[in-house]
């Protein structure tokens, strides 16, 4: 993975010193909250319901074991012993004190990590394919380009105060695991007919209040020009994006308003000033960065391991785990293994400090000391020998990583929701827990097969509900939480926005609603058809009819006040702490 040079280290330490000063000026009252808020957000620091939350960047999802151990250290020293991995491959700590935030950043810097621009109206952490570099369907490893763009976007002087947040995502594979169609700019690395490497560029995708699928602005931008081209897009957006209405400020609204042809024309015009100029990426710089990502330590191994084949036949649990949590690898004899962070009872994407340390140890033992965070909020060990799979499975079981549910109903994508987030209308973690309890039957889950269930606690759509095969959105109706259900969404290859099935439901009705949707699917599906394919084939009608045919009962257990996650005890038992001073 990428290693900092002396300039990276210097710039990061200057950033921490700057932020430490800003925190001091806030604590002394010199900086007002309005002035400080923008600064702390660009250092990843939110003020949530209970405490300050810090979102730490995991650039394009890549982590070293040493970095993971520092997350564990932060969880223990500054937080309540756990962290939350997000859909943008980052990690969040929920219970920080403002005074300690600069110390957290300093500890992160010892392992070349940071929280720069993980929030605020600037260019955010660039996401990528969690199987980059190892996927069988990969054409070109996108990570060197992601790193080059990370550096370009870091502390870009012109783009720190954009109309709204700005997200890049990049993939180099046939199947889009990076959801490039729902990012402000989506990049697909590919080769043209002449064999030259470049990018297909999409622009104006995004979810939130107005979900829009990105549109192609260029079918091929040669790799050397990616900085100048990206800069041209962001410059046009900075100048012309709307600033009068927060909800209409994303680039997707601008592109929609003036049309892709006009937007393309403006970008091309802008690009003429900088194209072929000094910001053109050099071969030397690409080579320097790319060298960090090349792995030459693969052994020559047989494509299958005999012990794995035997256990797979004899042990159903191992069979299930192999089927769901182990992915093919481009190198013979290797596999990529997902560690599920969707353990029954825990918030989707949460990991305890002990789990983080365990994952780091497993990475050292089985996967060249590296891990990845997935947009599904799980972890990946990307370079595991087939012959290590049994030992890895045993270790994963010990640490609660072996739930064989990757891609299944309980592999829920979920935002922090009303349990933590000041923006939320409704709880989503607690709802995920309710769904998990209702469908806690691995045979049933395996039978239902691949399905994306996405939960968002508000229209900001951090849980990407629009692109869930089943998407659930928390809405506020006269101060009470309700949930709108949509089906038929899809996050990539191709992305599609789901359709709302009808009037919304209460918290305690949702598990039954999901159950009814699945009932229709099971009745209607052809042999191996996935839920989403059935929806695409038969449309919404049969689902709507069945869900609303009779009153949907509420699950009475979910109505009990002690069901609420925050009050329920572990792991949130420490007393309420107000960060507001």
């Amino acid at each position, binding site marked *: 993975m990428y290693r900092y*040079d002396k300039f990276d280290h210097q*710039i990061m330490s200057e*950033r921490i010193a700057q932020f430490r000063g800003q925190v001091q000026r806030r604590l002394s009252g010199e900086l007002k909250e309005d002035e400080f808020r923008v600064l702390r957000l660009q250092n990843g620091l939110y003020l949530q319901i209970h405490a300050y939350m810090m979102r730490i960047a995991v650039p394009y999802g890549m982590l070293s074991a040493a970095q993971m151990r520092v997350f564990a250290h932060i969880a223990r020293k500054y937080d309540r012993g756990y962290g939350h991995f997000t859909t943008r491959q980052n990690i969040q700590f929920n219970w920080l004190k403002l005074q300690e935030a600069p110390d957290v950043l300093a500890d992160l810097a010892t392992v070349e990590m940071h929280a720069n621009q993980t929030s605020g109206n600037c260019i955010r952490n660039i996401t990528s394919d969690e199987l980059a570099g190892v996927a069988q369907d990969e054409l070109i490893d996108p990570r060197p380009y992601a790193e080059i763009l990370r550096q370009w976007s870091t502390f870009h002087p*012109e783009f720190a105060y954009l109309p709204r947040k700005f997200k890049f995502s990049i993939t180099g594979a046939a199947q889009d695991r990076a959801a490039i169609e729902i990012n402000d700019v989506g990049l697909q690395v590919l080769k043209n007919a002449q064999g030259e490497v470049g990018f297909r560029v999409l622009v104006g995708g995004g979810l939130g209040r107005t979900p829009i699928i990105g549109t192609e602005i260029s079918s091929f931008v040669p790799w050397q020009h990616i*900085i100048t081209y990206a800069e041209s897009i962001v410059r046009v957006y900075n100048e012309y994006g709307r600033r009068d209405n927060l909800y209409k400020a994303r680039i997707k609204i601008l592109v929609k308003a003036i049309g892709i042809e006009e937007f393309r024309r403006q970008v091309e015009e802008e690009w003429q000033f900088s194209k072929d100029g000094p910001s053109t990426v050099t071969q030397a710089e690409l080579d320097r960065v790319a060298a960090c990502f090349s792995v030459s330590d693969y052994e020559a191994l047989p494509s299958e391991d005999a012990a794995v084949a035997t256990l797979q036949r004899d042990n159903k649990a191992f069979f299930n785990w192999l089927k769901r949590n182990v992915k093919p690898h481009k190198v013979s004899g290797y596999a990529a293994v997902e560690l599920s962070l969707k353990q029954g009872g825990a918030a989707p994407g949460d990991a305890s400090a002990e789990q983080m340390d365990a994952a780091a140890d497993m990475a050292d033992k089985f996967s060249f000391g590296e891990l990845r965070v997935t947009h599904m909020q799980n972890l990946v060990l990307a370079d595991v020998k087939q012959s290590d799979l049994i030992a890895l499975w045993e270790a994963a079981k010990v640490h609660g990583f072996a739930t064989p549910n990757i891609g299944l109903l309980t592999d829920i994508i979920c935002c922090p929701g009303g349990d933590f987030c000041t923006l939320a209308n409704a709880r989503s973690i607690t709802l995920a827990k309710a769904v998990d309890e209702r469908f806690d039957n691995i045979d049933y889950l395996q039978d239902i097969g691949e399905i994306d269930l996405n939960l968002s606690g508000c229209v900001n759509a951090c849980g990407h509900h629009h692109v869930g095969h089943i998407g659930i959105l928390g809405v506020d109706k006269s101060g009470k939480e309700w949930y709108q259900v949509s089906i038929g969404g899809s996050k990539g290859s191709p992305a599609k926005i789901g359709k709302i099935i009808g009037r919304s439901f209460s918290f305690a009705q949702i598990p039954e609603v999901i159950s009814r949707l699945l009932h229709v699917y099971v009745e209607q599906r052809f042999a191996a058809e996935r839920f989403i394919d059935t929806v695409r084939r038969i449309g919404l009608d049969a689902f709507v009819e069945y869900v609303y045919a009779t009153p949907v009962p509420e699950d009475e257990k979910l109505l009990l006040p002690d069901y609420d996650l925050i009050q329920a005890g572990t792991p949130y038992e420490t007393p309420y702490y107000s960060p507001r001073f």
Partner: protein
Amino acid sequence: MLIKDKVIITDDWTVLRLKEGEAADSVLVPSGKVIVPLPVWNCQHETLQARPELGVWLASFERVEDLQDDVHRFPVIAVDFHKFSDGRGYTLAYRLRKQLGYHGELRAMGDILQDQLFYLKRVGFDTFTVRADKDANAALAGFEDFSQGYQASADIDSPLFRRETRGEAA
């Protein structure tokens, strides 16, 4: 109070702002060194162009293209940040410097705070009027926040990977 070259100096320019009821075509532009709003320049162009010591200021929603032919006649162009979080002024400055080749004084004024000075300087501003309720002396520290930037901008013509030999460990 004006910051120039990281020093506080006396500002000998007056900034004209339209008051309630005043119109760009009729407002009286006082004598001396005055920075006028762009609409005043546009409306009173014919009388004002005889004055060599005249500056113009742009609001964040105005465009440098509106100045195109006149840009080089102004000894000072200012950009008014009505609030610091409106980042259009950064692109205005960049365009003035890099695309229109403006070499005169480029001033950031309005809601200008210590924490934005480093970026403002990078995109081409060279004078700054810090918001009146803030200590301009203390704000000077903002210029020293970083020793390097990754990107090319108006201040440095090439990105870090062309300026320096990358890859050496700390």
